[in-house]
């Protein structure tokens, strides 16, 4: 019996998508003083005093501020460090 040979046609396609980004969001709280929050931001995020003050004001006035955006593992680490300063830090997937 004839054995027909069928050569399968294989197509490959590479799909490269950037890794999803995560936001570290700090929520306002009634306990920590503004100056304390600035010191915490400078220490954890390694940013200037001026930038820390800008973020602190945003937290205070808007109730929340995204203080860092990037890959998940680093975001988790920063959120934990902010929690260790007793700030209300949460992780959110970047929209």
């Amino acid at each position, binding site marked *: 019996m004839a054995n027909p040979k069928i050569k399968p046609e294989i197509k490959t396609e590479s799909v490269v998508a950037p890794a999803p980004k995560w936001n570290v969001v700090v929520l306002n709280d009634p306990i920590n003083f503004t100056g304390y929050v600035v*010191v915490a931001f*400078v220490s954890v995020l390694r940013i200037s005093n001026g930038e820390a003050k800008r973020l602190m004001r945003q937290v205070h006035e808007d109730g929340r501020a995204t203080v860092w955006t990037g890959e998940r593992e680093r975001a*988790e680490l920063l959120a934990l460090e902010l929690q260790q300063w007793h700030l209300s830090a949460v992780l959110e997937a970047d929209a």
Partner: protein
Amino acid sequence: MPELRLSMTAEARTVLTDLLRLIAPAAARVSVNRAGIPDNDAEVAAFWTDTLTAQAAEEARLLATAFANAKGDPAVILLRNEAQACAFLRALSAVRMALRDLVFADIPDAELEAAAELDDEQMPTEKRHALACYTCFGLLQQSLVLQLDPEAFD
């Protein structure tokens, strides 16, 4: 950086030390409960819980030792460097968080933000006492922040 100093009256030291003995054991639970621990990864959640619990125990030890060693009148707490000062700042924040959750849970955020202006006349004695301590811990924090970074406050 030169050493940083926090001073208080001997009476304040005694009162704050007594309150710390009561509140410190609960601080770890409060710290973990308040943290927005990611719930979609068990390994990460366990790491966060362990880290925050261990830190709370360390903070309780730090405060107990610092207040116990603050002799004289005024009683002075000496912090040798920035790392020690930051650890002390965080420990004071933990105590204030614990007081907020365990003693002042019924006080709205907006009122607690201006705790010094709260009308405490109607409060039970223990709560009024705790509020005075909460304010004192805050004053110690502010003094430390001003020594660490005079420009931190607006």
